[in-house]
């Protein structure tokens, strides 16, 4: 596990990020409603939650596929919220990359693999000669475990796992500081998921890339993340190191998520009863709560009364 030096500045600082979508004059969806978190260089931050919790929207707002409604995003000292200056935008586009969920939909079917991978370098003129461009492309192809003869093929000629490798290569060829992986493995088969996750970990060890790993599969998130943020209905309800979240979950939503992880052990699985959590029934209002810090790294969103009840049977 990466040791995080909290004295250094975070690579990504998100504060009060809001992303609303106006549906009609009378109705606005608050997909992300004022979330704050930091990601330190070299770590993997996992963002989990059910569909509709706003985890993907968060990723897309950070990389500025959307225009955030409010809040501040500081990426490696550059303010990338609101209207960006030319330099800030260039910095963002070259140093933050994204890996998408569906590897077929995110690769241009009419371009060869090497063209797909080289595209980012070409757009940003990050090479001095054609030879350097080619070297960079082939180096990354080797690194993600594809072979060089794959470079002249088209995306449809690959299997799902290989396509995801192309997606990873395309992101990493830019030598980014931060990679946002949005459900990067959920469209893959189980045996291939493990390959891709191992690859992402190996590349992180080698290149020191930072990941924002967005997923709904908690067991995979546990495996890859140093820290985890749990999102529900546009709020981060709990955040902490992976151990803190798994060993000592405070928020009832986190607990219900953890209890819902299926376990490949029939005798246990047949008896497992998932903890239910219904925000309405419990009368939890996320907007009324504020952040309670349990440790330096572990915090939970709650009102004072809720916090007193939830943390009663926990040792801190």
């Amino acid at each position, binding site marked *: 596990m990466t040791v995080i030096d909290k004295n250094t500045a975070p690579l990504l600082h998100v504060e009060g990020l809001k992303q609303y979508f106006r549906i009609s004059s009378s109705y606005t969806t608050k997909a992300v409603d004022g979330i704050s978190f930091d990601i330190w260089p070299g770590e993997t931050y996992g963002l989990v939650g059910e*569909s509709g919790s706003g985890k993907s929207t968060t990723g897309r707002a950070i990389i500025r596929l959307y225009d955030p409604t409010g809040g501040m995003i500081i990426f490696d000292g550059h303010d990338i919220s609101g209207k960006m200056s030319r330099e800030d935008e260039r910095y963002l586009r070259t140093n933050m990359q994204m890996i998408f969920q569906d590897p077929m939909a995110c690769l241009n079917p009419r371009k060869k693999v090497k063209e797909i991978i080289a595209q980012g370098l070409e757009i940003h003129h990050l090479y001095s000669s054609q030879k350097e461009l080619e070297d960079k492309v082939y180096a990354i192809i080797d690194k993600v475990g594809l072979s060089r003869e794959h470079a002249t093929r088209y995306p449809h000629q690959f299997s799902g796992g290989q396509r995801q490798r192309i997606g990873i290569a395309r992101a990493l060829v830019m030598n980014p500081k931060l990679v946002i992986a949005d459900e990067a493995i959920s469209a893959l088969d189980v045996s291939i998921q*493990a390959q891709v996750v191992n690859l992402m970990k190996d590349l992180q060890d080698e290149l020191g890339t930072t990941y924002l790993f967005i997923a709904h599969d908690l*067991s995979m998130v546990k495996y890859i993340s140093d820290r985890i943020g749990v999102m529900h209905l546009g709020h981060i309800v709990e955040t902490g190191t992976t151990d803190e979240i798994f060993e000592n979950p405070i928020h009832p939503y986190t607990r219900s998520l953890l209890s*819902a992880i299926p376990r*490949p052990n029939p*005798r246990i699985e047949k008896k497992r009863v998932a903890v239910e959590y219904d925000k309405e029934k419990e009368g939890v209002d996320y907007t009324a709560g504020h952040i309670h810090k349990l440790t330096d790294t572990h915090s939970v969103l709650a009102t004072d009364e809720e916090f007193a009840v939830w943390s009663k049977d926990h040792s801190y």
Partner: protein
Amino acid sequence: MPTPKDLNDRVLSIRDLNISFDTASGTVHAIRGVRMDLFRGETIAIVGESGSGKSVTVKTIMGILANNGHIDSGSINYTFVNEKGEKETVDMTRLSQKEIRYRFCGKHIAMVFQDPMTSLDPTMTIGKQIMEGMILHLKLSKAEAKKRAIDLLAKVGIENPEKRFKQYPHELSGGMRQRVVIAIALACEPDILICDEPTTALDVTIQAKILELIKEIQAESNFAVIYITHDLGVVAKVADYVDVMYAGRIIEKGNIDEIFYDPRHPYTWGLLASMPDTDTNSKRLFAIPGTPPNLLEKVTGDAFAPRNPFALKIDYEAEPPMYDVGGQHRVASWLCDPRAPHVAMPEQLRERMEKMRKEGILE
């Protein structure tokens, strides 16, 4: 559970099924000699990666095989009680797809698909969709059908069934929609319920509830269930028996304990080991190297051999037969041959098995 079974309870028996598809780039042998038995009241899970042929197998049972697919050989014998109340057995491979669909689909064999939004008709109220099958197959009057439909909605755990009856699919949440799909499937009291990845499109918190619902209703009505899934967590929760498929063949089958606590085929080892475990803190996930074979090419030997770190020389030459390794456990791997060298499962997996066994007994 593994009591000797009464053959009278057998609803489905598949023997030596071979199916291939004609494609622009050649013939794909998608199913290669599948054998399967299904008894009343039990649950079978077919596990495999995409392209392993698990969906094709059940689509054949439902008579919804794609137009370029054809059954080369084999039989699917389905035993049911006909309109006259007599027991009848038909070989579904000899019927036309149309006949299967008119006589059996929905009435005797029903299916729950992966994505409830695409399997429901967005222009019809859910009540109408539930009634459709009952009016067609059971010849019920509209009033009777409506009464039963509302009962069914209540049964699948939908609150306020009278109100929901008049609503359209888009007004319901994903979990609710899947409950409606289950209600439709159960409307004509089928003998066999096929669930094709029923929870993949749903959130983890809802998955377990849907599986529990199917289980409860199964216990009441005593029909047989076939699950198709690649999620071993789902299998662990619901299945009595497991068939592991790879490249169109069943490579390991047995009851749930045999597969999860004593797997023998290296592919099953890989599948189990590549599931992330929330208890262990191992640094690397076990991954099966390579990708599934392309079935356009003829498979010589064991289809899994190129990805198998334990492959023997013979694996590249001849296809392994099904070995009986005791109980109901059958394995298609040369490693189970008495002449084969002894190969133990990977250390990481062995440790986990140990732990699983202990936990399973303790709780």
